[in-house]
């Protein structure tokens, strides 16, 4: 439910205040003030959405008062009630007081209600616009950051290649040539893996969720087979138990497991004995529990809450060629398929990523 609109009504005639409040108190959150100082006090204490003022008051005019409220509550919608029908007052009200509605006194309830409704509508649409603007600003800031990081990560291997090409042009030595090709090759693979990452992220953020039968043995082993040759010295353990059919999004699960396992390989503890990554999958009727654990370098406590943020890299992950995208992709993919993830980690002991993903078997 949306919050009640807050109205402040200022008038030196007590009777008007009382009848106004009793008439509108159910529909709106009404505050009343019998004088300008009293009204300003209310405004200083609380945010008001609509400010209504009488024109003829002993201290200052309604227009002057409303003009003062602009600085105090710039987002409020202002309305003037007056017994005068002087055109000058109306013009002044609109120009100086940023007053949206003008109601004649003595008022007809129907007209007054309509005017207030219009003000409320205006307030709400302005508030919505402000909110949207804020969100856009945030999205824009993120995009800026994204574009700069992206352009740097795309450009730096290209500039390396260009540098090598310049060298090769001036150096005709055959032995050096072979070396140049190797260097170019490694730059190209680096660039390619970065682009694949981006595409993965893009596919994930755009694609609809797919529902198909999943064999976790096949899926888990498949992920391991793909990554095993990245490190021959590392042990890959699976413990997969599936006695019930599971329906879900194969592509996203693959993306999630790929990222978690390649992180386990990337962030291994080179000095540890028996380096391993272990994938444990237990399929239940309603959900699947997946845990990917390792005895790698682990994550510092202070970093754990940030690791799923886009482009977040720890000192360690920069050292290991992390792009700061992998875990962000994991989080986004999990959100799409309604899964959750929990991280437990201790530096130089290892990390464990524990996932729970719902089985969509009933709905398919």
């Amino acid at each position, binding site marked *: 439910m949306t919050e009640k609109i807050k109205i402040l009504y200022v008038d030196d005639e007590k009777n008007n205040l009382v009848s106004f409040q009793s008439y509108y108190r159910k529909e709106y959150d009404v505050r009343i003030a019998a004088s300008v100082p009293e009204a300003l006090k209310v405004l200083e204490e609380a945010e008001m959405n609509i400010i209504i003022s009488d024109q003829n008051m002993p201290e200052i005019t309604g227009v002057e008062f409303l003009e003062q409220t602009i600085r105090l509550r710039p987002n409020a919608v202002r309305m003037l009630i007056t017994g005068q029908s002087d055109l000058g007052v109306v013009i002044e009200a609109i120009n100086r007081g940023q007053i949206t509605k003008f109601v004649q006194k003595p008022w007809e309830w129907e007209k007054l209600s309509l005017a207030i409704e219009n003000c409320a509508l205006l307030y709400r649409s302005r508030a919505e616009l402000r909110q949207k603007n804020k969100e856009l600003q945030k999205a824009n800031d993120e995009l800026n950051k994204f574009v700069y990081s992206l352009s*740097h990560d795309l450009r*730096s291997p290209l500039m390396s290649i260009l540098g090598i090409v310049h060298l090769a042009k001036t150096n005709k030595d055959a032995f050096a040539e072979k070396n140049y090709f190797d260097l170019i090759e490694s730059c190209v693979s680096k660039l390619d893996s970065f682009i694949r990452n981006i595409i993965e992220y893009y596919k994930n953020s755009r694609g609809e969720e797919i529902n198909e039968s999943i064999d976790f043995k096949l899926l888990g082993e498949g992920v391991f087979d793909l990554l095993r040759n990245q490190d021959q010295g590392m042990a890959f353990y699976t413990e997969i138990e599936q006695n019930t059919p599971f329906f879900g999004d194969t592509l996203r699960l693959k993306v999630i497991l790929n990222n978690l396992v390649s992180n386990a390989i990337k962030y291994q503890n080179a000095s540890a004995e028996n380096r391993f990554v272990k994938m444990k999958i237990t399929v239940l009727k309603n959900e699947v529990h997946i845990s990917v654990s390792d005895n790698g370098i682990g994550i510092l406590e202070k970093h754990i809450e940030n690791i799923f943020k886009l482009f977040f890299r720890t*000192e360690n992950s*920069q050292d290991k060629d992390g792009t700061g995208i992998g875990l962000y992709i994991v989080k986004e993919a999990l959100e799409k398929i309604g899964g959750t993830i929990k991280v437990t980690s201790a530096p130089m002991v290892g990390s464990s990523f524990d996932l729970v993903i719902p089985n969509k078997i009933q709905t398919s």
Partner: protein
Amino acid sequence: MNNKPLIMLVDDNKIDLFIHSEVIKKTPFNAAIISFNFAGDALTYLENNEETKWPQVIMLDIHMPIMNGFDFLDKYEKLPERLRKKCLVVMVSSSLNTDDLKKAKTNSEVAAFLEKPLNSEKFVSLLSSFLSDSLT
């Protein structure tokens, strides 16, 4: 006295270190090169060496893990002035981020900014006056 100029390269990308040292070898400065993969190691070198082993030029990358080029400069400016004043810091980056460029240009320790890829012409035109003593 050894009049071969010493040039220090600081870059996390090993391929770029290779390119830069090859490029510099092609210049007529007859320079000796020391390369560092981590800015922290480069700093340690500077801290632990006296004038005779200080480089005349430091080619410094911007985007590096753990300690980036600007972090390096924050620490570098605390080193003795008598050593720093004989050493030129040149930032080298593939960054198109105008903030990076601005930051590099306004840093009093930075003598120049060069865009990657580095080539001999760029290097020579920037440093010929500074290293001309050592031209053979």
